């Protein structure tokens, strides 16, 4: 039975929120889990003392700047750096010619595999500039201003090529080819001709054609979504420092210090043993801080500048033009139902723009697409397509939002045509334990239907919405989550505190959620655990903070450390008390054997009189549970301007067990805010030649506080069977449903079904005018 907790606006009690209020769950007897303590790194972050990547300072520091291509697609004939090198204060200039020759080999160095040749080419363009903003050269100088001047003195001779900007451009018969050596990989079969289609795959089961032929009702629609960016507020920054013995230290803002180490090692052909990566505090990532951009360039510049340290801080325009974004896409969805409203067949065709190199998240998108539904006859096709846009990077549930927008729009239309309530339709068709994901993987215990029930029962859904141009929509979403590898150590202090060293960079309060799991395991207070995020020399390999895995997997390592410390403490106390270790028990923070007893704090001292006590843990948990979320939104449309106002928003999410409920709610609210931006405003705007026109935070319009209401959260706790505390990843699935939910609300408000994102004022007005013209029997404006 799912336990649901409603944190609605009306019921929200300002005075009690945020306090350490004992067992926040009221169940399972947890002492620490379920409470809301202040995070260990909090004070530094509210006082301005926390050190982020751009804050790193050291004596003799040089400043690097990167020259970027002003063209979307061009051959680089030559690069003349002589004027830049002659500028006083300049210490080094590098181009791709300074990079080692990269191997034509595919490796997974973070989240997703990439050919090392492409990885290197994205750092500094070799023969071609493949997008507006592609790095072509870099300078190190004694001040950032001099470096900037020097960059402007570099002459690059370009031979312009036609820009290939969209799926349709790229797949046209006469399309210019971006990568001469690229051949289509169609499920292992390699094509013969140069192409922009990097790969194709198909998941299928049942008899699709028969199911569509026998259907009571079929809805088929085509959709387009635009490129969007993760929008982390801290631009990428890194500092490289050589030591006289050839050791290299890199400070950087990253989701994965080991991922940085691996990528820099491969790109620069340096053994990992010579690289130490120190993760600074990280100012947001959302998937966009896994790929390296500036780290190898800083090392390269340092080498060429006589091994002086070099820092590179990106500016916002470069961040938007050259890092991140996630794929724009063309999607076709066709779903059939029988007379009872049961889905009998589903088809999704997903065409994803990978950017300049293969590797869009279309694979993950395929699994998201029809995941919330139990469907016997199914086909999902995925196409990974290169275009002259920046190399796409992971973005929170990568690929999921696009696919769910399309599927949830069609599902809403089916429910409407059947005359069914949108929630009831989703409950009738909801996937549950033993049903299969689009790729065939069978679900263990999941909470999809529970999230729909939670929305259906919410005050929000139960309260009717009045008013013209107002509408309500709901949508569901799925995300796979991830386990990954984590390592950590715990040293027991003689005063009964524990120092926990782990390597998962803390983007959203994970030091707290990891500390809490060790405290729970040891039955000690949260404040007795001090969790630090350490560098790559201090613990063993650790995967990125991504895939919603950190509280799950690194938290598991913390649990494991607790068990190990407890066991060793029992063994040592048995020696002290002259009993066998099995006779020592531990309860409520006190060790017992016969008449002997010792509280944890005193035991910590006693057991370390002869020998210090430290534990280490490495984990690779496989049974991470997937996450589901169903969301409800009310919107109001301004018919004059097309602007959408979000009136009310409620999220129900299957969160497994919420370790720190405030940070779980924060993940849900933050993911939804990003999804709202994606749905109604955010997009990369290019001209016909492929120049990015909106590389600023004024024109790339992310939601502000004024654009959003309070976002209500319903934590549906379906404990994951794959974790000792039932933890499920909570970071990503929340961004999957918003675009679909908002599109459905817009339909409810206006009668217009939007077939593209963003539902920006201009796009919505055009669609509304087209509908009015159609209703009046007039030609549709703009439709030649």
């Amino acid at each position, binding site marked *: 039975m799912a336990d649901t907790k409603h944190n609605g606006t009306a019921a929200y009690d300002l005075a009690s929120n945020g306090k350490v209020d004992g067992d926040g769950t009221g169940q399972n007897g947890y002492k620490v889990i379920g409470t809301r303590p202040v995070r260990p790194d909090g004070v530094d972050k*509210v006082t301005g003392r926390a050190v982020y990547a751009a804050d790193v300072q050291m004596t003799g520091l040089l400043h690097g700047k990167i020259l970027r291509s002003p063209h979307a697609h061009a051959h680089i004939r030559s690069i003349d750096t002589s004027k830049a090198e002659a500028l006083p204060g300049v210490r080094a200039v590098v181009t791709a010619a300074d990079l080692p020759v990269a191997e034509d080999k595919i490796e997974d160095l973070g989240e997703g595999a990439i050919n090392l040749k492409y990885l290197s080419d994205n750092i500094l363009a070799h023969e071609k500039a493949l997008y507006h903003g592609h790095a072509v050269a870099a300078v190190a100088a004694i001040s950032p*201003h001099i470096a900037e001047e020097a960059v402007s003195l570099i002459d690059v001779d370009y031979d312009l090529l036609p820009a290939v900007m969209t799926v349709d451009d790229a797949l046209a018969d006469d399309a210019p080819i971006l990568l001469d050596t690229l051949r289509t990989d169609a499920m292992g079969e390699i094509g013969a001709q140069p192409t922009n289609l990097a790969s194709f795959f198909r998941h299928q089961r049942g008899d699709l054609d028969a199911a569509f032929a026998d259907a009571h009702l079929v809805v088929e629609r085509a959709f387009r979504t635009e490129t969007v960016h993760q929008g982390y507020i801290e631009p990428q920054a890194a500092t490289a420092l050589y030591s006289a013995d050839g050791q290299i230290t890199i400070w950087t803002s990253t989701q994965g210090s080991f991922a940085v180490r691996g990528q820099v090692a491969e790109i620069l052909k340096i053994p990992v043993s010579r690289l130490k990566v120190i993760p600074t505090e990280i*100012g947001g990532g959302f998937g966009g801080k896994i790929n390296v951009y500036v780290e190898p360039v800083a090392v390269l510049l340092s080498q060429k500048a006589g091994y002086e340290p070099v820092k590179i801080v990106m500016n916002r325009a470069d961040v938007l033009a050259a890092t991140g974004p996630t794929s724009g896409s063309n999607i076709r969805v066709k779903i059939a139902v029988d007379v009872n409203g049961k889905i009998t067949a589903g088809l999704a065709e997903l065409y994803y723009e990978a950017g300049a190199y293969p590797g869009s998240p279309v694979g993950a998108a395929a699994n998201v697409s029809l995941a919330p539904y139990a469907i016997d006859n199914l086909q999902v096709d995925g196409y990974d397509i290169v275009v002259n846009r920046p190399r796409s990077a992971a973005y929170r549930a990568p690929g999921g939002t696009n696919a769910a927008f399309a599927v949830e729009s069609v599902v809403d239309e089916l429910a409407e045509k059947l005359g069914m309530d949108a929630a009831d339709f989703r409950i009738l068709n909801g996937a549950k334990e033993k049903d299969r994901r689009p790729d065939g993987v069978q679900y263990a215990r999941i909470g999809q239907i529970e999230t729909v029930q939670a929305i259906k029962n919410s005050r929000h859904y139960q309260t009717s919405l009045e008013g013209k141009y107002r509408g309500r929509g709901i949508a569901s979403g799925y995300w796979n989550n991830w386990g990954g590898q984590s390592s950590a150590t715990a040293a027991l202090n003689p005063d009964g505190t524990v120092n926990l060293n782990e390597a998962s960079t803390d983007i959203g309060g994970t030091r707290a959620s990891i500390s809490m799991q060790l405290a729970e395991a040891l039955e000690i207070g949260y404040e007795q655990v001090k969790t630090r995020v350490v560098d790559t020399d201090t613990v063993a390999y650790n995967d990125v903070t991504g895939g919603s895995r950190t509280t799950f997997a690194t938290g598991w390592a913390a649990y494991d450390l607790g068990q190990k410390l407890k066991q060793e403490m029992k063994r040592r106390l048995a020696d002290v008390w002259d009993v066998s270790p099995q006779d020592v028990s531990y309860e409520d923070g006190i060790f017992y054997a016969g008449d002997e007893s010792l509280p944890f704090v005193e035991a910590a001292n006693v057991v370390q009189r002869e020998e210090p006590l430290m534990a280490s843990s490495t984990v690779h948990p496989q049974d991470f549970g997937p996450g589901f979320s169903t969301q409800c939104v009310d919107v109001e449309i301004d018919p004059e301007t097309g602007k959408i106002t979000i009136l009310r928003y409620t999220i129900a999410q299957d969160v497994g067990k919420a370790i720190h409920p405030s940070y779980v709610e924060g993940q849900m609210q933050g993911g939804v805010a990003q999804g709202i931006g994606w749905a109604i405003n955010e997009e990369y705007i290019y001209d016909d030649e492929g120049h990015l026109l909106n590389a600023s935070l004024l024109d790339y319009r992310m939601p502000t506080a004024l654009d959003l209401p309070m976002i209500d959260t319903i934590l549906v706790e379906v404990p994951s069977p794959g974790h000792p505390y039932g933890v499920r990843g909570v970071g990503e699935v929340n961004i999957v449903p918003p675009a679909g939910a908002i599109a459905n609300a817009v339909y409810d408000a206006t009668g217009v079904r939007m077939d593209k994102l963003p539902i920006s004022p201009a796009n919505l007005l055009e669609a509304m005018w087209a509908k009015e013209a159609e209703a009046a029997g007039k030609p549709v404006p703009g439709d030649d």
Partner: protein
Amino acid sequence: MANKTAVETTLNGEETTFLCEPRQTLLEALRDELGLIGSKEGCGNGNCGACNVLLDGVLVNSCLVLAPEIEGRSVVTIEGIAEDGELHPLQQKFLEHASLQCGICTPGFIVSSKALLDENPNPTEHDVRLWLAGNLCRCTGYDKIVRAVLDVAQNNA
């Protein structure tokens, strides 16, 4: 290389003199010349608010002010918000409400919220959202930030 100019100012209540290039922004001077790294650069053109400081009590984007412009004026940065080793109520409530995730925007939000409460000690939710519309946060969806500010205001009342 540009000549440096001396600037006399009151910084977080202390009389301070520093050298900077005329082309350096206040944000650069704070971070690179004065070692005050709490003000952050998220955009460099006044759109994100991560560098917000108070200049003679008025909220400004320090990336849009040239450092020599603060000659003879008073600047308060995030480093000057806590007094006598005690966190400001806004800092305390941001912690209690889990109003920060990555924390990069937090200094700017706290400085901006202080400016709001200095001017309007009892803002409505709408007042808070309107005032903070110049500060971008990508992690939280603003919910817990707005609640923290309203909580401080409620305690003011």
